[in-house]
């Protein structure tokens, strides 16, 4: 019964979404206040109804209601509760419902907190947002109904894909969806502004927090996915340039560009048309990502629910929204005239350069991802585009970004001076190069990768600190430190996120440059040396888990006779799904991870055992977290906490209020 109510609530929400698409847009066009105001309660109602529908589906999973087809396909009574819940979105239908839930949540937020927006803009934003929600609700209801019952309820389910039964993956999809869908908000604001024909600083101040929130979620989602790959796939890779990964990376790159260009709109009222275009493209690429993941168009390790019919729907949604938005942009984009002027050397220019590099790197990933398809369909060449291409084509853009970042970040707005800005940076640059050279001399042979990562990492991290330091004025150190602590949170957020990027670059380069691998047959009780460590395979035992059986290796790691860690690499088999998984044994450390996986039993006795020593692996996740934390800090800045759009504030230098108001 609850399941039927959930189904009904979803249909009701769909009906409201259709009305909410039309009424506020007409109201805003005609200037009818009641029609515009009607959007607010409708947005709330949509969210409440979809939340109920989602709750109903969750209920079916939690109670293992095997009369629901989706629960049969993706759950099992023996599964731990957390995975029963994560099973709700660990499949195509349920994840779509989660997608719709976040869409309506963001729409409702614009209704709840948007009172200080111009009434017509708010009405249009809600209308556009609702049209997206309506499209996805229709898709869910007509092609991917999660509430479908089955005629004969089985005694037990077929279990969730064991690879998904993992804390990392339980929360990876919701974060990504919050990110993708957060970009829908930027899209709605962009389209609403195009309809409105006007953009001002207040618009930028509104779009930026949404983009920041979306970006934080995307960053966390991607980092979680990458971390999961690291410990779960059994050989410690963290990025594979798989189409599905690219589908999340491309929106991230565009969101990063967008949140930088939105600053320019907010502070300087220029780059408006470009920012609107970025907002449209950012959401466009997240729609395209969804399409890639679910259509089976591109083969991928984690493409799920691949079904051409559904692909057509998603392609139609993507093409519909993008063509309308881009046509609107072509017609109205030119009308978004810029107010602020800036010299060639200025913070604005630095941010334009940042945008060019990010957007082009995003397009390059896109071209590489789609190329096999294009080459086969248009040119009849069956080929692959893999990591070697992406590493070669993508990396230079991030190297360039890292090089210009510290100087660009301290350039003055409007008119800057590179030499003045770089004055505080010379020391850091020289230090970074010196340490890099030292590292290069000390490492025996090997590639330039690690030394370059060291140089860039130091340059970016210390550059971010120097940015804060330079903003603390002059005088005694204690005074400067006190002033530094009082700097706006946006400044701290900027420095934290930038430093996080430096840490990530450092970690990737040193991990790839310096990791070592050992593959061997080890008998129980046998010891061997790997780097500075001695590893001993004590024994291999069968262990029974809640819904799996495990072959567990007991490995002791010592260094110079001192005990370091006991590792438990596992090979699990989940009988319900009939699928094996590997669980690596990892000793996380500040300067290195010791990573062990258990392989096959060998014919002559013993087990295949792989061990890896990965320097600075944890720094990769720490750096990603720093980036997300920087976003959160920036999001909590005073100017967003006080009513967005209100003019009272910390920036007396802001341009005069626009006369058009």
């Amino acid at each position, binding site marked *: 019964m609850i399941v039927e109510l959930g189904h009904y609530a979803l249909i009701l929400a769909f009906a409201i979404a259709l009305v909410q698409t039309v009424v506020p847009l007409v109201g805003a066009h005609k200037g009818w206040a009641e029609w515009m105001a009607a959007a607010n309660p409708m947005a709330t109602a949509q969210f409440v109804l979809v939340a109920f529908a989602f709750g109903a589906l969750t209920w079916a999973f939690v109670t293992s209601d095997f009369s629901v087809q989706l629960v049969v396909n993706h759950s099992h009574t023996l599964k731990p509760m957390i995975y029963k819940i994560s099973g709700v979105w660990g499949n195509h239908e349920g994840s779509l419902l989660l997608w719709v839930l976040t869409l309506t949540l963001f729409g409702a937020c614009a209704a709840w907190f948007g009172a200080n927006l111009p009434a017509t803009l708010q009405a249009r934003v809600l209308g556009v947002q609702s049209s997206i929600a309506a499209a996805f609700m229709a898709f869910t209801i007509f092609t991917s109904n999660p509430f479908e019952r089955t005629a004969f309820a089985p005694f037990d389910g077929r279990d969730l894909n064991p690879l998904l039964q993992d804390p990392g993956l339980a929360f990876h999809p919701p974060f990504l969806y919050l990110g993708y869908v957060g970009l829908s908000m930027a899209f709605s604001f962009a389209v609403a502004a195009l309809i409105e024909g006007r953009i001002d600083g207040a618009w930028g101040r509104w779009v930026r927090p949404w983009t920041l929130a979306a970006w934080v979620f995307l960053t966390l989602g991607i980092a979680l996915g990458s971390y999961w790959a690291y410990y779960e796939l059994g050989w410690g890779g963290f990025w594979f340039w798989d189409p599905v990964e690219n589908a999340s990376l491309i929106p991230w790159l565009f969101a990063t560009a967008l949140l930088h260009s939105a600053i320019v709109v907010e502070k300087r009222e220029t780059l408006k048309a470009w920012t609107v275009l970025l907002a449209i493209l950012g959401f466009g690429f997240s729609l395209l990502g969804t399409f890639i993941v679910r259509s089976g168009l591109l083969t991928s390790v984690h493409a799920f629910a691949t079904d051409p019919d559904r692909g057509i729907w998603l392609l139609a949604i993507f093409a519909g929204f993008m063509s309308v938005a881009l046509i609107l942009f072509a017609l109205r984009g030119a009308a978004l005239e810029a107010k602020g002027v800036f010299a060639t050397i200025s913070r604005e220019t630095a941010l334009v350069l940042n945008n060019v590099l990010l957007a082009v790197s995003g397009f390059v990933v896109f071209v590489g991802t789609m190329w096999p398809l294009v080459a086969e369909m248009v040119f009849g060449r*069956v080929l692959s585009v*893999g990591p070697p291409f992406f590493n070669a084509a993508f990396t230079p853009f991030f190297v360039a970004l890292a090089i210009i970042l510290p100087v660009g970040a301290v350039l003055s707005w409007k008119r800057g001076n590179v030499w003045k800005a770089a004055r505080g940076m010379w020391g850091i640059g020289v230090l970074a190069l010196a340490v890099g050279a030292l590292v290069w001399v000390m490492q025996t042979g090997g590639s330039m990768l690690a030394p370059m990562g060291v140089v860039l990492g130091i340059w970016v991290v210390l550059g971010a600190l120097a940015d804060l330091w330079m903003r603390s004025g002059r005088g005694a150190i204690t005074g400067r430190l006190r002033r530094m602590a009082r700097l706006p949170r946006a400044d701290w957020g900027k420095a934290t996120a930038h430093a996080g990027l430096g840490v990530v670059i450092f970690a990737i380069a040193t991990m790839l440059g310096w990791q070592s691998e050992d593959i061997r047959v080890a008998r129980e009780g046998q010891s061997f040396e790997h780097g500075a460590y001695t590893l001993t395979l004590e024994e291999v035992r069968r262990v029974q888990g809640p819904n799996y059986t495990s072959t567990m290796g007991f490995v002791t790691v010592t260094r110079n006779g001192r005990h370091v860690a006991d590792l438990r690499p596992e090979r699990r088999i989940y009988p319900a799904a009939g699928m*094996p998984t590997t669980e690596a044994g990892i000793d996380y450390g500040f300067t290195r991870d010791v990573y062990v996986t258990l392989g096959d039993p060998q014919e002559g006795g013993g087990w295949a055992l792989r061990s890896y020593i990965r320097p600075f692996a944890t720094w990769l996740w720490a750096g990603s977290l720093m980036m997300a934390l920087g976003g959160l800090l920036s999001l909590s800045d005073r100017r967003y906490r006080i009513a967005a759009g209100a003019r009272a504030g910390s920036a007396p230098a802001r341009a005069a209020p626009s006369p058009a108001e």
Partner: protein
Amino acid sequence: MRAMLRALVIAVILGLALPVMGAFPAQAVQPDEILDDPSLEARARALSANLRCVVCQNESIDESNADLARDMRLVVRERLVAGDSDEAVMQFMVDRYGEFVLLSPRRDGVNIILWASGPILLLLGLGFAIAAIRRRGADAPEPLSEEERARLKEIMRE
């Protein structure tokens, strides 16, 4: 997920369902594959990372667990032991499995579009940005007229 289930069902129907313990896929590079000569082995690993496992989804044979990937790794090592150069090994694999095995697509024919896309887009982007910035610099606000100046003075006095 579905495809996996479907594949599993088909496997069961065909009587290929493996006994539970035997169902583990072989794991990437096996100890018995490793060549005694470390320099040859290093070359084999480098080549493997650039070859696609043809039955897998976007995995190189170096990281794949599939049986076919193992066979392909062994072929690579066989050719290296036989004294082939790196290029010869890659050519051998392409002759055998098609261009599809190359994870780094060849830089010829239409693939030039792919490889040149980055630099070309960058040049376009930079050109566009420079043009826009120049234009913006050009239409800097005109100096105030006499009338405006007088009005400004008035305002300042207030």
